[in-house]
C-alpha cells in the first residue's frame, strides 16, 4: 500500500476517459445547441457533478458521512465572489469591507484561488478534530460545522451582506470553463482514489483496527482525504459563484446538503461514476418537477404550488434506492469496470 499501483492507475484512466467523453458530449451540446439560460443549467449541472465528486472523494473512500461540505461550498462561493466583484460595486454594496478586500479585483483564476485558500484554512481547522473523532460522531460534528458557517455568513452583514446575500458577481464562467473544472475534479478524485493515500483510506474504512495494525496512521489518512475533498469542493464552489451571479446564505444550508448527498447516495457512495450519474438523475428530476413546485397552469386548469415537492421526490427516491440496493446504483463500481477490458481491481 505504499506504492502506486499501475493496475489501479490504468483502471482510473479508463474510467476518466469514459466519463470525459460523456461530459464532453453534454458540454458540446450545451455550448452549441442551447440558449444562454439553458446553458446556465448545463453549467450548474457540470459544477454540481464536480462538487458531488468532491464529496465522494472523502465520503466514498472513508465511509464517513459529512454534512459539512456545503459549508466549504459557501465559503468558496463567498471568497471567490468577494475577490472578483469590481471595487466600485463593492464599496457601494458592502461599505463596511476592509480596504484590502474592497480594492481586490481578481480574474477567474485568482478569484477561485482566493476561495480555495479560504477553504484550505478552514479545512485544516476542521479536519484536525474530525479525523480523530469516533466515526459515529463525525456526521453530527460536520452538521454542527455547517450550522456554524451558515450562522456566520448569514449574520456577518459587513462582510457577506447578511441574509440578502451578494449580487453583481461577474459572469466569468460558461460551459467551456465548467467543463474544464469538472474534468479537473474528476481526474484528481480518480487519481486520489487510486493513490496509496486513497487505498489506505479505503483500508481504514473497511477495518480501522486492522488497518492501524498494518501501520496505517488512521487519523492522518482521514485528514488527507478530508483536505483533498475540501479543496476540490472549493474549486467547484468558486466556479459556481461566477456562474450564479447572485446568491444568499440560505443556498448553502440544509436543502443544498440534502440535494448533494442525495445525488451521491443514489449513484453510489463508492464510485465517482455514481456521483456523476446521481447528479444527472437529480438534475433531470428537479428540472421536470420545477414547474410543479411553482404551480402550473395549463389553459384554464391551474395546479396549486407544491412547495418542497422536489425534495419530497428526492427523499422517496433515496429510500427506494437504499432498500433496493443499499450501495446505490453503481455501488463501488466505476464505469471503467463495466467496459470490456476495463481492468477491474476492486
Amino acid at each position: 500500500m505504499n506504492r502506486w499501483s499501475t493496475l489501479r492507475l490504468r483502471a482510473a484512466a479508463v474510467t476518466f476517459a469514459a466519463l470525459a467523453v460523456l461530459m464532453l458530449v453534454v458540454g458540446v451540446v450545451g455550448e452549441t445547441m442551447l440558449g444562454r439560460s439553458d446553458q446556465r443549467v448545463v453549467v450548474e449541472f457540470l459544477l454540481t457533478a464536480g462538487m458531488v465528486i468532491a464529496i465522494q472523494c472523502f465520503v466514498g473512500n472513508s465511509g464517513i458521512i459529512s454534512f459539512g461540505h456545503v459549508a466549504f461550498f459557501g465559503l468558496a462561493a463567498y471568497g471567490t465572489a468577494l475577490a472578483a466583484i469590481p471595487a466600485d460595486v463593492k464599496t457601494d454594496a458592502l461599505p463596511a469591507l476592509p480596504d484590502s478586500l474592497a480594492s481586490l479585483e481578481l480574474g477567474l483564476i485568482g478569484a477561485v484561488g482566493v476561495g480555495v485558500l479560504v477553504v484550505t484554512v478552514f479545512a485544516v481547522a476542521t479536519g484536525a478534530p474530525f479525523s480523530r473523532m469516533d466515526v459515529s460522531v463525525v456526521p453530527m460534528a460536520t452538521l454542527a460545522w455547517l450550522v456554524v458557517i451558515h450562522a456566520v455568513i448569514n449574520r456577518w452583514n459587513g462582510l457577506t451582506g447578511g441574509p440578502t446575500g451578494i449580487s453583481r458577481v461577474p459572469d466569468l464562467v460558461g460551459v467551456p470553463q465548467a467543463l474544464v473544472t469538472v474534468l479537473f475534479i474528476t481526474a484528481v478524485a480518480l487519481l486520489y482514489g487510486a493513490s496509496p493515500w486513497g487505498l489506505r483510506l479505503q483500508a481504514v474504512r473497511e477495518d480501522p483496527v486492522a488497518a492501524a495494525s498494518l501501520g496505517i496512521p488512521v487519523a492522518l489518512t482521514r485528514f488527507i482525504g478530508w483536505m483533498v475533498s475540501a479543496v476540490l469542493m472549493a474549486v467547484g464552489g468558486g466556479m459556481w459563484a461566477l456562474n450564479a451571479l447572485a446568491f444568499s446564505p440560505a443556498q448553502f444550508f440544509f436543502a443544498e446538503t440534502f440535494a448533494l448527498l442525495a445525488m451521491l447516495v443514489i449513484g453510489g457512495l463508492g464510485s465517482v461514476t455514481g456521483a456523476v450519474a446521481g447528479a444527472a438523475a437529480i438534475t433531470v428530476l428537479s428540472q421536470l418537477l420545477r414547474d410543479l413546485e411553482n404551480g402550473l397552469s395549463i389553459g384554464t386548469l391551474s395546479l396549486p404550488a407544491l412547495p418542497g415537492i422536489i425534495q419530497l421526490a428526492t427523499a422517496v427516491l433515496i429510500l427506494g434506492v437504499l432498500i433496493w440496493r443499499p450501495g446505490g446504483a453503481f455501488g463501488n463500481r466505476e464505469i471503467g469496470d463495466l467496459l470490456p477490458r476495463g481492468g477491474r481491481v476492486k
Partner: protein
Amino acid sequence: MSLTLLTQQLINALSLGSIYALLALGLAVVFSVLGLLNFAYGEIVTVTSYGVVLCVAAGAPLFLAVVVGFTLGALTSLVTEAVAFRPMRRAPAYAVVFSSFAVAVIIQATIRNVISPRPQGIAVPAWLDRVLSLGTIRVPVLSLITIAIAAVAMVALSALLQRSRHGIAMQAAAQDFQATRLMGAKAGNLIRLAFLISGVLAAVAGLLWVMRVGSATPGMGFTPLLQAFVAVVLGGLGNLRGAVAGGFALAFLEVSLQVFLPNSLVPFVQAITLTLIIVLLYFRPHGFGRRVEGRLA
C-alpha cells in the same frame, strides 16, 4: 450581575437543560440498543408540536391536545423504525443515516404541502404564561412546570429500565444484543420498544418545546435534533446518564454565553457554542462520560 438575575438565569438554564436532557435521552435509548443515530428524531418534536398546536387551534382542551400530540409523536418514531431502520438491518450504517434523513425530509415536505409552510402559532393558556414573584426573583410558571415534567419523565424511565421485564431486557440488549436474543428476547420487539420510549421522550420534550417557542414550523425539528446530538456526544455515546448531563451542560453553556457575551456577539451564540464543542471534542474525541458498553441506567 446581581444575585437575583443570576438565580433567574439559573432557573432558565435548568428548564432549558431539562428539555435538552429529555431529547438526548430519547436519542441515546435507540443508540444504546442499535448503535445508530436516528436523523429523523427532530421530526418527532415537529409532529408532536403540530398535533398540539392544531388541536388547541381547533378549540380542543389542552389535555386532549397533549394526548393527541403524544400519540402522534410516538407513532412518528415507530413509523421511522419501520420505514428507515427495519429494511436496512443488513445494510451498512451509513445507509441508515440517509434513510432516516430521507424520512425527515418527507415529513417536512408533507407538512409544508398539507398544512402550510408558514409558522402556526399556539395560544399558550394564560396560567402557563404567568410569572411568579418570589421576593425579587421572577420565575415563569412554564419553567417550573418544564423542570417538574422532565424530572417525572426521567424517574419513570429509570423505573421502567430497572424494574420492568422489558426494561431489563433492553439493558441486556445494550450490553450484548446477540446474547439477549439467545436468552429468548425478540429482537424486533426490543427495537420497537426502544423506538417507542424514544418517541415518548421526544414527544414530552416537543410539548415543552412548542410551549416555549410559541409556534410550530415545518423545519422546527432541526434545532432539537442538533442539541440532542451534541448532548449525547458530550455525555459519551450510549451512556444515558451522560446524555442527561450533556443536556444540562449544553444548556448552561448556552445560557451563560447569552448572559455574559457582549450584545454584538449574541446572534452568534449558537455558532460559538458549537465551535466550542467541536474544540472540546478535539481533546476528548469520545465525549466526557465513559463510553459504557451496556450500562443503560
